[in-house]
């Protein structure tokens, strides 16, 4: 039995300790916004946060994240970075099929919590683990910058 803190709520789950967080979120708890893409940490579709850091939930054993603060795409909108990114994603109409975008937004939110105003190179470095087969990368770059700028504006005012 593991106790998980997900998006501010507590979940008690009876699963093996080596079960990846991804499948606990999706199949056991029912939070399906976190996606499966590869199972080997190559695509980033499963990105979630543990204590504010981006992790690939497909290779994160649930036993290692008990009682730590887990945030998923369903909860990221409650954070200022997450909300700003979602707004920018909509304003620039980033998604096409959309399947990878929860992972993209989670990686971007982790980036913005480290770097307030990332450069292209910092964006590329932080986001290179997130694949998009629709290839929406040009807009992802713009959206991260727009979200960062909107937060800078919000802080000044």
């Amino acid at each position: 039995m593991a106790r998980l803190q997900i998006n501010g709520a507590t979940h008690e789950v009876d699963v093996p300790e080596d079960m990846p967080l991804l499948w606990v979120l999706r199949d056991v708890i029912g939070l399906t916004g976190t996606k499966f893409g590869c199972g080997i940490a190559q695509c980033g579709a499963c990105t979630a946060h543990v204590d504010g850091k981006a992790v690939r939930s497909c290779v994160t054993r649930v036993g290692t994240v008990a009682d730590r603060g887990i945030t998923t795409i369903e909860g990221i909108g409650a954070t200022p970075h997450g909300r700003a990114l979602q707004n920018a994603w909509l304003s620039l109409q980033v998604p096409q099929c959309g399947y990878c975008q929860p992972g993209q937004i989670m990686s971007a939110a982790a980036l913005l919590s480290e770097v307030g105003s990332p450069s292209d190179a910092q964006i590329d470095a932080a986001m290179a683990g997130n694949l998009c087969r629709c290839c929406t990368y040009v807009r992802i770059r713009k959206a991260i910058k727009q979200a960062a700028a909107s937060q800078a504006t919000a802080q000044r005012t």
Partner: protein
Amino acid sequence: MNARVSRRHFLRTGAVGAALVLGFRLYAARPASAETSTAGLAQFTPNAFIRIDSEGGIVLVVDKCEVGQGVYTSLPMLLAEELDADLDQVAIVPSPPNEQLYADPILHLQATGNSTSVRSSWTELRRAGAAARQMLIAAAAAEWRVDPSQCRTERATVIHDGTRRQLGYGALAAAATQQPVPQDPQLKQAEQFKQIGKSPLRVDLPGKVDGAAQYGFDVRLPGMLFATIASSPTFGGKLNSLDDNPARSIKGVRNVVRIGGQGFDVGGYKLHLDDAVAVVAENTWAAQQGLAALEPAWDRGPNAHLGMDDVVRALEAASDRGGLVARHNGDVDKALSTAATRLEARNYMPFLAHAAMEPLSCVADAREDSCEIWTATQVQARAQGIAAQVAGLPPEKVTLHNLISGGAFGRRLELDGIALAVAISKQSGAPVKLVFTREQDIRHDLYRPFYHDRLRAGLDASGKLVAWHHRIVGPSIFARWAPQALRSDGLDPDAVDGAIQMPYAFPNLLVEYVREEPPAIPTAFWRGVGSTHNAWVIESFVDEIAAVAKQDPVQFRRDLLGHAPRALAVLNLAAEKSRWDKALPPRSGRGIALAYAFDTYLATVVEVTLSGAGLVTLQRVVCAVDCGSIVHPDSAIAQIEGGTLFGLSAALWNEVTVRNGRVEQGNFNDYRTIRIDETPEVEVHLVSSREAPGGLGETGTVAAAPALANAIFSATGYRVRQLPIIKSIEELKRRA
């Protein structure tokens, strides 16, 4: 339901409750089903529906699958424009399976593909909206006893300014059904458009940024189990024996099933499923653990030693045969024999997997007397058909819930996931979600064909192109997928697509097709279909001819165009915006490709730099596009941006290879796909036009590979004849 058939194009099906139901069609009737015959619609079976209920709810049945191209927004915009309703007043429902009602007029099949969605709907949906609007106005005018011409509409309301009266469409719905159906509803002129040509927020996007969007992969049902699957590692292998116990001893595993080993025929569409083993469990992880614990004894079968040499040798041998003539102008042999300069080339294009971000998935609940499926499919009626065959039920007992797709690129034109999920559910006595691992998704895909092309060209003494001979050698997808689409002599129109309708005016031209099927490896449509293959071959060879003729690639193409003003315009626009004549640093190059595909004209310029190790860096991409009238410009740009990068990614790195009868690649570590740090700036310039719309979902992909290959030639002098480009790394390193 009682229906009266109008004299010509439209029909009125009368009031259903207090709803105005308007069907419409503009194309020749196909044989009606029993279902539609009993409704009295035999001759004018509609292919889409508007429904306006007394509450004012406006519903459009969308007959296309939302795969990311934006049809859940663009198609309702067409309707809303002519109906004078705002987009937020139009609800959409995915169409049920029904070949008679929803066959695409270009594809003659209920299908999303070949970039037809807007092309097929452009006139039909606007006429539907206009006809409904006219009937609603007539109903209001009758009630107010005013002249309909004095009424106007906005935001789903009929307004009579003279008497300051207004009624919403919902209040008028019942009365409108009593109005005659307009025979030829007046459509707006382009300058009257209020919605078409704007870029409202796509309706599917809010759910795609907060995790709420539901894909097939996300469906959850009470009592649902989770399944994962492993098919025979070799093509055509058989399952000799299997000990279930190692899987069943894992906590959460509920069932181990043997499936596959059979063929299907759904209205001419053929699919063979190799033997497979699936593990069904309480969650995906347990199912995957169970599958990993199994050691199935596979008979490797007749293809146990199959390798790429076998495939390539067979294609090369076939290339010495004469082919079916797809197009022939003038006298190519004579022109070649008298040409001052002759060129020849052989090109090779690899097998490719689709590798959509959402691996194949399907939820099925197969019961004794019914079957429900939840998935994303590009072919709804066929999906219902194959589920019915597997479930052993008549098609009408199968309910399809068609969901948005996490990418498709042609993958969901196939039905293997649905057939497997229904079989597993049936054997397990429970609703089951089948999810492919990425390895199963790549190793048991149906692949973009490996093509071999041979080309010959002749130039006269002045460097003018006088002869063009293109022989295409490869499999026929249509022979399996829709044999009725083949020409009577077996010519596959997809295999020669883009090769027989080039924008160029060649005086002597011969295009041939030699069908050669690879042993055992199933082939399927892939983004850009025939045009993606042929544009690479043709635009690479045109570029080569220009180089031999010592002419600038853009000017050489201009001179070849003859009377093709739209092609010329995009060529010139791409050259201008890319600053074609501006010098580049060493080891850098620019390449251009021009394409006419899916009724769209596109010119793409790619700029690259090579490292000393021969690695290619994409520096800049400029696309000029004339796709006629544009419904949602921002989505048009997005499709070209993404489609171009998709094509560049495949051209640089992607191939599926077979060794000892098995696919060698399995995941994104060995099936490489472009990442953000490899992505250049992409500029898309749209030409303003009022021509009929062209397709956009695949068009960007078409011009990508040749523009890249030509840029590499410009940078290094090395002519790429084989994709992916990474295979030429040693040569590029030597020249860099």
